[in-house]
């Protein structure tokens, strides 16, 4: 059996902001239809990796390939066209404050399919129904919604263009366990309804294990030696539980270990 051609390839990726290096020599491939969870502690570069994949951040070295096209070599217009094949659910939803829920969900359609205006409203209503939002929220502003509702509007907005790749940035952060599970279920339902590739950045192990069929773990560069790889785990969600790497098992179990001591030491040294 011939393995499917990866839809996304990350090759020797380095990202640096001024003097601070965030990602170092990351290599990763994502197959079509796969649900990949990127886990790791706060500040390890998960979101930066996600934004580099969609071209919001330019790599310092290395490159990202999407559907055999190098993202960093695309012109502004080409990049804009390619981005319509992605849906991005942001950590804090990133809904436009000045627009209503309906306008937020309609925005990508109006931007790219201005000629088919008659079907826009139906499309928007379908997506909102899919994520379980009632019609009563249509005229509301994002500030009037709860965190869980905002996340669902963000998901509806990401789905409205029927993307091939869905990027989730911490989809369950800041939500209570029940609403988190609703979002997890929505992600699973989305995968079963559409032939979509999903990349989920999270530090919630429950989300990673429930939604993803592959998990990779990033480790903060500040805690690694110069030659150590930054991706310290790549496998199935079932394998991660039994990982022999102490750093992985510590993260999975949510144990601080000697971290508090180390943090205090770092502060004193600084």
């Amino acid at each position, binding site marked *: 059996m011939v393995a499917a051609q990866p839809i996304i390839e990350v090759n020797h990726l380095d990202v640096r902001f001024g003097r601070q290096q965030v990602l170092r020599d990351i290599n990763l491939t994502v197959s079509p239809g796969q649900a990949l969870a990127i886990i790791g502690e706060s500040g390890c570069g998960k979101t930066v990796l996600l934004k580099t994949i*969609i071209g919001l951040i330019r790599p310092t070295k290395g490159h990202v390939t999407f559907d055999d096209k190098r993202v960093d070599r695309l012109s*502004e217009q080409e990049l804009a066209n390619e*981005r319509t094949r992605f849906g*991005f659910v*942001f950590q804090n939803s*990133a809904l*436009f*404050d000045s627009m209503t829920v309906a306008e937020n969900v309609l925005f990508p359609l109006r*931007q790219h399919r201005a000629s088919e205006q008659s079907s826009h409203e139906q499309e928007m209503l379908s997506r909102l129904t899919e994520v379980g939002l009632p019609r009563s929220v249509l005229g509301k502003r994002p500030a009037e919604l709860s965190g869980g509702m905002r996340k669902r509007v963000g998901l509806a907005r990401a789905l409205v263009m029927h993307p091939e790749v869905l990027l989730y940035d911490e989809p369950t952060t800041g939500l209570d366990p029940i609403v988190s599970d609703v979002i997890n279920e929505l992600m699973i339902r989305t995968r079963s309804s559409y032939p979509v590739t999903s990349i989920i950045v999270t530090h919630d192990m429950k989300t990673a294990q429930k939604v993803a069929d592959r998990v990779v773990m990033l480790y903060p560069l500040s805690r690694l030696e110069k030659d150590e790889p930054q991706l310290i785990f790549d496998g199935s969600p079932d394998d991660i539980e039994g990982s022999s790497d102490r750093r992985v098992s510590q993260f999975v179990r949510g144990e601080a270990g000697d971290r508090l001591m180390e943090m205090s030491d770092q502060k004193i040294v600084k």
Partner: protein
Amino acid sequence: MASGTDYAYSGRPRRGLFGGLFESIADLGGFVLNGFETLGDMTMFAWRTLMWMITRLPRRETLFANMYQIGVLSLPVVALTGTFIGMVLAVQSYTQFRAFGLETQLGGVINKSMFRELGPVLAATMLAGRVGSAMAAELGTMRVTEQIDALASMGANPIQYLVVPRFLSCLLLIPSLTIMAVFMGVVGGAGYCVFILNIDMQHYTSNARQFVENWDLFYGVVKSVFFGATIGLVSCYRGFHCEPGAEGVGSAATTAFVQSFVVIIMLDLFLSIFLDEVYMAIWPTSPMLFS
């Protein structure tokens, strides 16, 4: 441990006189490089804004909403300050002019100053304070809350969608605001001179007319267009490059006003020199009043 304590308190190692000197030079170099980097970045930002403005005009509803915010809502404050500036000019000049028995000539000074200098600068200052800071804060908040990233991730161009309508509104509406500031200044100055200082209205009016030419109106309007472009670009740039957090947004708003104002004052000098040269080139025999 002594050295440890030094690090903790000074935040930087002390390496004697030469060490300190080299560090100062390095800091200065860093500051200069940073300045050039910002200037280059700003130039690219302005270039991309102009390119988007030429290639694709913003949607009518977005443009009109910005025009309303920037132009219509600024009218009352510009009119009010314009009136008071005209009256202040009258108060300040009256004593000197009266000493020479030239109080009927006050209209010339007030009108000339309003048309050429105070009208454009006042309207621009008001716009930078009322609109520029608000634009920087709004775009800064959008940056911090990832709304600008969201826009880009959906294949929309943030410069085309957010900057071009604001820039165009500043550019197109500042001449009207300047004319309003000038008009109200002229009315305020005339009102104060005639009704409070009891200067003869007929003399005041005829002298005022004699001193002001169409060129003066053109002079002020040309300046205002440059000022409007400065406010639009500097404020949007500051908003786009906002640092994270509430402090970052506050700082973007303040910096937008301060930088816009500094650039406006510098531009004012260069434009005044340039426009005077143009005047002299076109009408070499015409006497330039007050020059």
